[in-house]
């Protein structure tokens, strides 16, 4: 609970597959996945889980729907926050205007934030993000990490992030798992950030320069 777990590894190494198996979208060949102690196939309390998939933009190309409709579709009765408030929580400017806009009209940054708002709207206890930094620039990444840090701290949300962007994890991670088809490392971040480990994970020689950067908090 309250852990900040980063799953890192190269593309094709199985990070997305792992996340999808966690939420029951994919079925494992063997073993059982349990969410909050319940086998995922029988799990019903989905308001406790927030999931942000990769490549959300492609989902909305053909379907006309407004931001408000999207957020309301994810709201579980009695558990949900106000959509406009959630939008400003994730850093959307002018949320009362954005809420009426069609999702496919949003900028990449606003779409990403909206998907995060959708995942957070029921105040979940578990937040799962698949490659959240891919289409986002540096300031965007900093802002995203700030939001995640805040909900982790204020709500006690357990956060699981899959990313191949090793730089993003920085000092935010409390635990790191590295996978490249098989699990290669599971521990805290300080031991990971040495060249040899990254070598094995990515399969080629990588030099890291540790500069002890902390994301500034707002």
């Amino acid at each position: 609970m309250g852990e900040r777990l980063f799953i890192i590894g190269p593309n094709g190494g199985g990070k997305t597959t792992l996340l999808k198996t966690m939420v029951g979208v994919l079925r494992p060949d063997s073993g059982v996945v349990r969410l909050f102690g319940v086998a995922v196939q029988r799990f019903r309390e989905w308001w406790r889980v927030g999931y942000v998939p990769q490549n959300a933009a492609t989902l909305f190309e053909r379907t006309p729907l407004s931001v408000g409709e999207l957020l309301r579709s994810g709201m579980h009765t009695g558990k949900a926050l106000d959509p406009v408030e959630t939008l400003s929580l994730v850093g959307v400017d002018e949320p009362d205007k954005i809420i009426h806009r069609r999702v496919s009209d949003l900028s990449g940054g606003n779409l990403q934030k909206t998907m995060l708002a959708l995942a957070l709207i029921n105040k979940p206890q578990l937040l799962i993000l698949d490659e959240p930094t891919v289409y986002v620039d540096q300031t965007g990444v900093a802002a995203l990490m700030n939001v995640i840090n805040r909900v982790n701290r204020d709500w006690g949300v357990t956060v699981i992030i899959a990313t191949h962007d090793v730089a993003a994890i920085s000092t935010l991670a409390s635990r790191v798992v590295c996978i490249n088809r098989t699990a290669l490392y599971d521990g805290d971040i300080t031991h990971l950030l040495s060249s040899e480990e990254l070598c094995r994970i990515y399969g080629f020689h990588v030099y890291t320069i540790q500069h002890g950067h902390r994301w500034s908090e707002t």
Partner: protein
Amino acid sequence: MQRALGAAVVTGLLLPLIGNYLVPKRLSLLGDASSHAAFAVIALSSLLGFRETLLTYLAPVAAIYAILQLMRRFHVSGDQALAALLAVGGATASLAISLGARVNLNAVLFGSLLLVQVEDIILGVSVAAAVTLFVAGNFGKTLVYTVSEELAKVRGVQVGAYTFVFAVAAGLSIVTGIKIAGVLLVTALLAIPTMAASLISNSFKISILLSILFGTTATTLGVFISYYLALAPGASSVMVLMIFLILCLVLRSLRIRI
């Protein structure tokens, strides 16, 4: 004429409504496959001499089930699965006709006001009521289901059950549509209203309402044109839909959204 108008209103509401859920999932092809399956059954029952009603309604549902299985279990792409079923349906109908089935091809392929039976209207209204209630009661969930089945699963939506509901509804409504629009054009009623509405809608709700408006206007006008000008109702409805589509394309290029 009254029966035809009744069928027109029901079809013009039902097919576009379902179309809103099928088109984003690239399943609008289900309309074509279903209509050809129904065509086969119509021809066969004429050949073998029995009244087709029940079977004609089951055939499209079976065809849809077959396509979805081909797509999901055997990973056949939608257009390939469609090609297979169109071929089977069309070929069966053709064989039946060569063997002596008496089918008014013009009426079946392009629709005829005379084909509409009371049962069609009753079934159409029932399916329309059921689908409308389902969608209204589960609007958010059906919306998520349409956008992404993955997101729907994490939302707690029973994806399998929803697919079943929409597939059956689509299959049943196709048959009423065939009477009005004909085997070859009924898919137009499924896909074009949604296509046009999506161009100018800012929300899903508006898109649904607009598509129903386009659909019912097209089918109703189609019936009148057919009645007074002795033209096929299917073609007349499609012409009206085309006008709406062009109108929406123009509005879209002017960046007008509702």
